[in-house]
């Protein structure tokens, strides 16, 4: 049995390796994507293009404007002279924020009347809009504090002191890059497995494999091996790049990460093999792969939290192996997961792997019409 199995595994590796283009597809893009997405996928907002419309010549207004201009966040500023230009610069997306100071601002402030400043943001990107408003409010809060201190007024009776655990500066790259480990290993595992059976079936060599002395279980192992080895290898490279190149802290146990990665790969390649053995043609297999990869990524919590989803969608996400591995990979990188939380992510993946791999092995034989 071992000799047969070894021969099959070698054959599967060769099949993948011999084709120069598919070899490239499996190795080149993931590394490139890691670098591109690692830098591109960020929720941090910087270099906000800002327009300032100051109708007030007073010193306080000038001081406030200077705070915006000097801030590293609002570093690209234009000055508006007319009210009508506000709509132009926002509509055309020339700027994302307009700071409008009315004519009576300095006078109101001096007379201890509430002075109002108007902030207009482009809501076509509402997440960015909220973050920009947060930054702008910080600038104004600082201005208020300086003003009350220097004019002997009483500040607010309570103040909020915000501290962030595991990611003190809320760098979104720390959140995204560990997620990319899960994202790219998913794509690779599915790409390698989804077409393997379908291709052989289309060419007719799968029937030959079935009539050989190999049992379905052995075929399953042979077909899984390349994806497992490639997935583990690429996962390790990505983790190394995340730590060494992007400088993401890794505070958890490497063993926990690999235990998670192994089960994650088994469950995803199970899905890939299932798709592959269900498909009649390669075209259907690719479609199936797409139809799994895209929702699996979007519903995994990679970019938007699962907690924000409606209940029925949250139930759907329970079948998504990436959901569990994301918690493990982010947890081991940033915080070091408590054991019970780690285990409660492991067993659902083990369950998904068992179901999909068994189904794939069964389908090898029973899809033969």
């Amino acid at each position: 049995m071992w000799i047969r199995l070894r021969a099959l595994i070698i054959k599967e590796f060769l099949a993948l390796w011999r084709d120069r283009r598919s070899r490239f597809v499996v190795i080149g893009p993931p590394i490139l994507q890691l670098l591109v997405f690692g830098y591109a996928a960020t929720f941090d907002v910087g270099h906000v293009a800002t327009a300032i419309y100051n109708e007030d010549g007073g010193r306080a207004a000038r001081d406030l404007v200077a705070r915006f201009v000097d801030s590293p966040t609002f570093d690209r500023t234009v000055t508006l002279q007319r009210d009508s230009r506000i709509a132009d610069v926002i509509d055309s997306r020339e700027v994302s924020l307009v700071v409008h100071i009315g004519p009576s601002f300095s006078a109101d402030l001096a007379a201890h009347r509430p002075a109002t400043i108007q902030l207009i943001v482009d809501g076509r990107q509402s997440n960015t809009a909220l973050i920009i408003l947060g930054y702008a409010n910080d600038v104004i809060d600082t201005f208020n504090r300086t003003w009350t201190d220097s004019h002997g007024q009483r500040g607010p009776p309570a103040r909020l002191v915000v501290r962030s655990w595991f990611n003190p500066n809320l760098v979104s790259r720390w959140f995204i890059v560990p997620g990319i480990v899960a994202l790219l290993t998913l794509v690779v595992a599915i790409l390698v497995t989804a077409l393997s059976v379908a291709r052989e079936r289309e060419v007719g060599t799968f029937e030959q494999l079935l009539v050989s002395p190999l049992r379905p279980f052995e075929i399953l192992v042979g077909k899984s091996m390349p994806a497992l080895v490639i997935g583990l290898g690429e996962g390790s490279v990505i983790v190394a790049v995340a730590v060494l190149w992007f400088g993401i802290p890794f505070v958890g146990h490497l063993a926990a990460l690999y235990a998670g990665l192994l089960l994650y790969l088994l469950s995803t390649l199970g899905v890939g093999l299932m798709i592959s053995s269900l498909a009649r043609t390669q075209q259907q297999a690719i479609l199936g792969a797409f139809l799994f990869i895209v929702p699996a990524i979007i519903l995994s919590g990679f970019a938007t939290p699962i907690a924000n989803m409606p209940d029925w969608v949250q139930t759907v996400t329970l079948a998504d192996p990436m959901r569990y591995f994301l918690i493990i990979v982010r947890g081991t990188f940033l915080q070091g997961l408590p054991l019970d939380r780690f285990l409660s992510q492991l067993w659902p993946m083990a369950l998904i792997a068992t179901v999909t791999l068994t189904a794939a092995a069964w389908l090898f034989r029973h899809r033969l019409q």
Partner: protein
Amino acid sequence: MTGPGHGRRGRWRRLRGLVVKESLQIFRDPSSIMIAFAMPMILLLLFGYGISLDARHVPVALVIESQSQAASSFAGSFSHSDYFAPRVMHDTRSARRALVDGKIDAILVLRSDFARELQRPGGAPIQLIVNGTDSNTARIVSGYAQGAWRKWLELSGLATGTAVTPPVTVDQRVWFNPEVRSRDFLVPGLIAIIMTLIGALLTALVVAREWERGTMEALIVTPVTAGEILLGKLIPYFGLGMGGMVVSTAMAIFLFDVPFRGSFLVLTVTSALFLLTALGMGLLISTLTRNQFVAGQIAIIVTFLPAFILSGFIFDIGSMPAVLQGLTHIVAARYFVSILQSLFLAGDVWSVIVPNAAALAIMALVFLGLTRRFTRKRL
């Protein structure tokens, strides 16, 4: 050269024949129709409901070390907020444990001397600890907490008659999306991503399949030209893709209640341009690879992930490093996302639509031109 099959009439007849052949193929293999109609519906349903950046009922722990009137009024302002689902805890240890376990997203601590500190000149500190593992949610949660804190200051000041208004108050307006519903900006972007997938998938495989099976050679030895073969493939899939676009737009407007403030004419023209780009990209991939296996893999790698991450659909392009901002210019979805966000939320903003549509037109020409060249060269 006046025999049948030559001249303009012959060309039209050949083209019609090709279009009919391709359409028949589409109808016989339902997978193309599935891609064009069922896929946008399923994907929009899942994503429209699934992708949201609006955190609601965020689980937070309120640690109140000693009860006082001020502490309970502060706790009340969190219980009444739609954004939070607070639970009161009496010691920091168990709250910290819950944060590490991911059961709560934030902790608010009112220390035992809270009521006394309120009277001091510096004011009482309220500690907010957020779980930074998910940095974006952490930022949103601390923004909500700041809002609740400001509101509490205002209300408690009014109640005691010692209102402390800050010197400068902010009047903030979020244009085009005053309620800041993330769905309103995500759904138009999703349409662009889904159309990228559909356009590339529809064509990436068909031509590769013909090369693989040798039917492409059979087509090429007939009098049809490379351009005609391409048009014959493009026309039926273009029709399918536009059908998918109609389905997606209707779902966005009627199911997800996203406002549509532009004109349908502009939407039709720009969608047509985008679809030509996406189909052109798919045709180019399959012409270059001539192998379904590789074509499928490349289509997955160059379409979905770049459209998801580099298009400005969810991650702000202006915040990316300059090199990557340059790279986004070759992602067709980027232009379409920008057009759709404006058309849906702002209206026909020509200063956004014209440059983006021009970029799409150029990309479509490049992809289709290259495909035509490679089809001929490899005769």
